[in-house]
């Protein structure tokens, strides 16, 4: 113990850490999404795997390309880019041309994240930016839903999956039409036709890869909740407000509007409420803000689904509330201890 030896470290207190790290939080989301992803493979076969892999590849590659060299090591290591790719993939239709899935991954990370300054700086949910981009760019391909293939013909691929980059799916018209079906939401919106709740729970309906099985999504949500990986207020607030709003409509005119339960279990409602609206980066940090955000999403979803042009409204509802998040945060600052009112 001589005078300058050992050279001690000077770190600002506190020295202790809780132990949870950001990459681990992201890993938890991966684990929570595993059941739903496996269900996608079960229901949609190899096509699902390929779509998921290409969208992940598009996201990760873009992240790598556009991150300054000195930060690359840690951005890829934090699992978030790949998670964005996976979540994007889970919102895509199974027969989407793979090149579009790849482009979607690129748009997610490029427009949704890198431009803003990378992890933590973006205002909009990157996966949904990617999806909104794809939907606006290729509305036809993005609203072509195929029937489930089932595990028996796991290996069959849709011709449209393999369309050449920048080209349309080779079989337009008759070929694809034969396979296309309507999603439960399409049926509801345009035919006023319900879907069996059992099918919605298990997931043997058509729809995007990850949204079909309500049960497995809820399972993932419970896991995340137990791991403290999500803010429980958000799913609760969304589902609650959406249920109330649609119950009110249902009571007013039952044969025109869906039942609340149908609203909650169909389409991207659960995938969005549990995994996407809860993206910490793009939702309010304050508890009161989280409630406001969630209620906003819940109301907007029902508004768009019932009165708007689109059968599905989850993506737009979340993106719109993402845009309002800075304002919500600003006006819901917690009341500091010993202070009368929260100042803005």
């Amino acid at each position, binding site marked *: 113990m001589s005078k300058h030896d050992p050279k001690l470290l000077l770190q600002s207190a506190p020295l202790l850490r809780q132990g949870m790290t950001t990459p681990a939080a992201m890993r938890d989301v991966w684990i929570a999404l595993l059941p739903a992803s496996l269900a996608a493979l079960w229901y949609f076969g190899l096509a699902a795997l390929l779509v998921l892999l290409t969208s992940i590849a598009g996201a990760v590659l873009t992240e790598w390309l556009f991150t300054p060299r000195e930060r690359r090591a840690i951005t890829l290591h934090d699992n978030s880019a790949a998670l964005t790719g996976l979540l994007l993939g889970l919102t895509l239709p199974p027969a989407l041309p793979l090149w579009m899935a790849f482009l979607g991954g690129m748009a997610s990370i490029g427009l949704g994240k890198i431009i803003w300054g990378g992890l933590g700086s973006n205002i909009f949910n990157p996966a949904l930016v990617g999806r909104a981009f794809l939907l606006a760019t290729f*509305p*036809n391909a993005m*609203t072509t839903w195929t029937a489930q293939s089932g595990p028996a013909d796991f290996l069959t691929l849709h011709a449209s999956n393999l369309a050449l980059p920048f080209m349309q799916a080779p079989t337009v018209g008759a070929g694809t039409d034969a396979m296309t079906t309507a999603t439960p939401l399409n049926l509801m919106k*345009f*035919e006023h036709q319900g879907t069996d709740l059992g099918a919605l729970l298990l997931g043997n309906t058509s729809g995007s890869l990850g949204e079909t099985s309500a049960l497995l999504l809820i399972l993932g949500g419970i896991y995340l909740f137990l791991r403290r990986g999500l803010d429980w207020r958000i799913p609760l607030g969304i589902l609650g407000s959406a249920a109330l709003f649609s119950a009110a409509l249902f009571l007013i005119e039952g044969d025109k509007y869906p039942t609340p339960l149908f609203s909650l279990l169909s389409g991207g409602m659960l995938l969005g409420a549990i995994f996407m609206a809860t993206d910490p980066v793009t939702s309010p940090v304050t508890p009161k803000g989280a409630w406001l955000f969630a209620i906003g999403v819940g109301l907007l979803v029902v508004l768009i689904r019932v009165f708007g*042009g689109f059968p599905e409204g989850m993506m737009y509802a979340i993106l719109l509330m993402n845009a309002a998040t800075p304002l919500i945060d600003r006006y819901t600052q917690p009341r500091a201890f010993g202070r009368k009112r929260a100042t803005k």
Partner: protein
Amino acid sequence: MSSRSPTPPQEPTPSRLVGSLAVAGFLSGLIIIGIYVATLDTITENKARELREAVFRVLPEVTQMQKLQYDGERVVLKENGKDDENTLYAGYDDKGNLAGYALASDGPGFQDTIRVLFGYQPANNKVVGMWVLESRETPGLGDKIYKDAAFVTNFDNLSTEPPIVTVKRGTRSRANEVDAITGATISSKAVVRIINQGVEKWHQRLPLPGNEPQLKSEGRT
């Protein structure tokens, strides 16, 4: 910094200010009226041609037309004045017999207001043609309401009694049914709704068969 005047500029008299504004107004009025008069003929002609084309498109076998106006009680010949929502066109065949009316109607579409002109024969409750005058529907989807010939021909012979309905593409079976466009159900429905509204509005106003307005002169305008 090119204007470095050592003193702030002097204030001119108010009359000079007003005067220069008036002079500018006067000159600009002159120029504008000049260009207006110079282009007036071509423009009127363009417009008339366009209109005639549209009317002829929605009314088959029509060779002459004239502009009419509903004045609150009856339909009368319109000589001049601005077109408004009570303006309509009557189409006549070679022999000067009334072949139908071309009616304009509008309403909200998927994006923005859609304006259509449709041919209507009140005698047999039929729509005989449809032409989109104005729309901002999505290119590639909603714009099929005028780009997709299959959709447009739906309206070539369509019964309006009972009102027109949209059905899923390929399931059209009755005379009042229209095949929706896949991927643009909403725009398709909007067109149908707009036409239904137009029919509802005009059906009562149009003169009964036999009372139709006669073709004046040689079908001007």
